[in-house]
């Protein structure tokens, strides 16, 4: 998870100066390691598999993780989600959609210069639990919310 990327894999690191910047950034931010895209985790078809590929052990539900989303999505193609962690030393926030063909949707590394508060929009194939997973001090915490995916229009 924390290996350095090879220059051939990452298009935007091809340029020498870009690489230089990335390396200097790495030196300045030891905790914000440049992680290679975690293929095994993104390919996982079920929550336990995704957790396993991400190295998640014993995730516990925590009231200090907030998952802000509407109860109902008018369309599954775009479901706005926001996750906020109040847990000190949060280093990672991920969004997982339990019933999607690929469970893991997005993973954010939270460096020391960032607040643990991220917003994005996800696709959902059907009504499902959405999980905000927070990593802090090597431990994992979650907030879970069921989001109903409904039909808004004629469906024709």
């Amino acid at each position: 998870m924390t290996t350095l990327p090879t220059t051939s894999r990452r298009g935007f690191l091809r340029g020498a100066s870009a690489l230089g910047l990335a390396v200097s950034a790495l030196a300045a931010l030891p905790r914000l390691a440049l992680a290679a895209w975690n293929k095994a985790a993104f390919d996982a078809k079920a929550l336990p598999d995704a957790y396993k590929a991400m190295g998640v052990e014993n995730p516990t539900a925590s009231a200090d993780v907030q998952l802000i989303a509407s109860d109902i999505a008018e369309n599954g193609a775009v479901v706005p989600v926001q996750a906020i962690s109040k847990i000190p030393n949060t280093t990672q926030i991920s969004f997982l959609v339990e019933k999607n063909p690929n469970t893991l949707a997005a993973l954010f590394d939270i460096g020391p210069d960032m607040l643990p508060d991220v917003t994005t929009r996800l696709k959902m194939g059907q009504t499902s639990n959405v999980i905000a997973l927070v990593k802090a001090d090597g431990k994992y915490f979650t907030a879970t919310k069921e989001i109903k995916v409904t039909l808004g229009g004629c469906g024709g």
Partner: protein
Amino acid sequence: MRLRLIACLALTAGLAAGGAARAENDQSIEGIEKYREALRDGNPAELFEAQGEELWKKPDGPKKASLEKCDLGLGAGVVKGAYAQLPRYFKDTDRVQDAESRLLTCKEKLQGIDVGPIIKAPFGSHEKDDMNALVTYISGQSKGMPVKVSLSHPKEKAMFNLGKRMFYYEGGPYDFACATCHGQSGARIRLQELPALATTKGAPVGWTSWPAYRVSAGQMWGMQWRLADCFRQQRFPEPNYTSDATIALSMFMSALSKDAKMDTPGIKR
């Protein structure tokens, strides 16, 4: 009237399973409202506005000209506020035109482009995507401005009247007219509320929010596409792009939206 009422009552009698369902219903609508609120911040339509502006300024066609001298009704090159005053009568074409129709005129006259293929190209094609980006840009330049559509020219008035008649025109295997779904207020299809488009209260709900980004398909739709898809769902044949029937309906809705503020480009399910 009474007979009809009895028939209606017969259908509804004992069917209004009442309060509980309604409460649940309100909750669903509330959830949807929250969903829409979350979408408003960061409307991908902005991406299309940027593309449209680039297309507006880019020299194109045999005449290698941009559209920057296009007269959208407020004079050559004036984009600000133009969308809020369309459709309108244009002397040079002797026609009432909406934004899309007028853009085609400008492409033809300023750039020397044969617009036939643009008219014929299906929605979702590169040609139509460019048109949608352009109207998105143009409509964005009227955001927050009041709708000011004139009915003073006889052709404008006629277009409005034709639009009204089109709105009620029922046909096809499902007997649908625009009015079937949009002829009443407070009703929904599935969870989608339907504005009563023939009223001054309902018309702006529709008119002022298109062009809009459709999240369902990740596409940018101008009013021409919106109307074409309405007709599709009405089980009608497809309206010709920038045809009078579509411009008439736009004239009907926009005139009823007088003084409402444009909220374009919008974002929709």
